[in-house]
């Protein structure tokens, strides 16, 4: 069965005055049909850039310099303008970081969704409006509120409206970039439940991008951990949490659950992510890694399958 998305050796660099910043440095992963794959990592690791690259939204000074993005039967990086337009939103749509910015403040919510529909499909305005109303009620926004403006919505409602807009054309793949980051914990739960519901209803494949591993714990089937532009580990969700192999992953998992007693010290990974403009020999995590060896400073580790469907890029793990 064809995967909904197959990314192979994707490379995206930003060419700034300080040099080439390798935001995405050769990553490969797949999102199967009806699967939820989480892409997790700290700010600046390149996960959002990956999402933008899939939709070919990378702006200068950034450029996709290599790799392939294969989605629903087409090589995205080869599409021309016209094909790209019909690809975006119909095959793959995205929820961007910060719902406020996806919504036009001077148009009513319902009209914005309807416009998204009419731009991509040849339907009458009535049909488009009807579709918009339908989507909005699916996400739990009552009819009386659909003609409101974005500023009249609360944060949670805006996020739900954005989800409605993203799903209006029933795409195959939904990319969600930090959809719950700016929300309160209770609203965050509501939005996650909504996403789960939508996934079931539309049989969506989802690429869920976040820095918060805990939201992935219950929502995703597989998780890919990204660090400094490369993938550190990918595994099924349960496996990743019960047996994290890469030192970075186990660090992340540990800092989440806080293995200490209340009042004691919380565990955190020492140091901070590297400067991507600097050329770093070998593994980019070695400065913060508790088990780094000689080999780690010479050669960057490759992503290798260590167990069933469990890939790790770490010399210590693969060499025993």
């Amino acid at each position, binding site marked *: 069965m064809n995967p909904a998305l197959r990314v192979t050796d994707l490379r995206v660099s930003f060419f700034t005055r300080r040099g080439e910043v390798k935001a995405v440095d050769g990553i490969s992963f797949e999102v199967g049909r009806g699967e939820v794959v989480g892409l997790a990592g700290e700010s600046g690791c390149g996960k959002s850039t990956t999402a933008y690259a899939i939709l070919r939204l990378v702006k200068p000074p950034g450029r996709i310099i290599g790799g392939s993005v294969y989605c629903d039967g087409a090589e995205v990086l080869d599409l021309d303008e016209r094909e790209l337009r019909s690809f975006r939103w119909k095959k793959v749509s995205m929820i961007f970081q910060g719902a406020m910015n996806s919504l036009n403040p001077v148009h009513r919510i319902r009209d914005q969704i309807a416009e998204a529909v009419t731009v991509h499909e040849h339907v009458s305005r009535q049909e488009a409006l009807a579709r918009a109303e339908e989507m909005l009620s699916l996400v739990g926004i009552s009819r009386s509120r659909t003609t409101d403006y974005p500023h009249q919505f609360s944060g949670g409602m805006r996020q739900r409206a954005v989800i409605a807009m993203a799903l209006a054309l029933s795409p195959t793949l939904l990319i969600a970039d930090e959809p719950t980051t700016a929300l309160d914990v209770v609203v965050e739960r509501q939005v996650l*439940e909504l996403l789960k519901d939508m996934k079931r209803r539309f049989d969506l494949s989802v690429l869920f991008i976040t820095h918060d*591993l*805990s939201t992935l714990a219950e929502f995703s089937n597989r998780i890919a951990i990204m660090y400094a532009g490369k993938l550190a580990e990918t595994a099924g969700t349960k496996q990743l949490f019960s047996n994290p192999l890469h030192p970075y992953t186990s660090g992340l998992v540990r800092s989440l659950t806080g293995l200490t007693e209340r009042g004691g010290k919380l565990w*955190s990974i020492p140091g*901070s992510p590297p400067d991507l403009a600097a050329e770093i020999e070998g593994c980019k995590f070695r400065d913060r890694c508790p088990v780094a060896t000689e080999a780690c400073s010479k050669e960057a580790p490759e992503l290798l399958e260590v167990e069933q469907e469990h890939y790790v890029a770490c010399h210590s793990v693969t060499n025993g």
Partner: protein
Amino acid sequence: MTSDKDVEIVKQSSNQMFEIRNLKVYFPAQGGELLRRRVVRAVDGVSFSIGHGEVLSLVGESGSGKTTIGRVIARLTPPAEGAILFEGRDIASFRGPELKAYRRAVQMIFQDPYESLNPRLTVFSTITFPMRIQGIARDENEMRERCIDLLTRVGLRHADVIDNYPHELSGGERQRVSIARALALRPRFIIADEPVSMLDISIRSSILNVLTELKEQYGLTYLLITHDLRVAYYTSDRIMVAYLGKLMETASTEEFMRHQFHPYSRLLFSAFADLSSTEQQWGKWGTTGEIASAIDPPGGCRFHPRCPFRVDRCDKEPPPLSELAVGHYVACFNPQ
């Protein structure tokens, strides 16, 4: 309407660092019909106290009034009614040297690491700004020494950041600089308004660690404002839950984690603990609705429209805070 019971509770603990009595903060509302003065009742009758050396968490969603309460204590926002007593004295009466002393004693850490530092000042200038304003530190050298000391205490390599501008630092580093700035005047009390909510999960614990360490080193008292019970759990001695401008429950952290009486506290707790049994109680999340408007709050108990345990009384009058267990106060007619 103040409840005598509320003020009673506060009076019991009279040697507290802070006493907040029947605080009310109203803001004029945007829009609305012509000629109709609408107000946002951000804080509508809140009383509590903060003990010396305590870490008190004020937990609530946006719109609960928690940030406003913090700002009033910081004397950034004036209250409409009520009083804040610091060491027994009303802060509203502070002028001149008294006010200056208060500013030294009470500091704040803000939520947004990207907006809480002046983009035109280097880290050194930012941290020494309070010192210059207050006239402490004799000369440039002493200021530099103090600055280096502060940066080290918050876990930064001072040489790497001291002459940098905020945009050259990461979110976590900026927040540490904010903390260093807050410590510049050797305060006794720090209000931390959502100190980690805009940082990556993976670095939150390191920032919280810094706050905890500094508490020991400097003998600080904290008011920690957050929407995330996890943060409250890991750092605080006592937890206070606020909803739509009023307090719903307050107890020691251990007590609270063991058992929450108020239905709203349970809602928060289940978002935190993710327990399936609570999901059965609450049903599908979509039905819990959203926080109501603070302009036109629900009559009676603020939470009653969303509450699955409401009884008749709940929409008629607001429940007073009552002590249901030792040190455990709840404002509810049908506590669980």
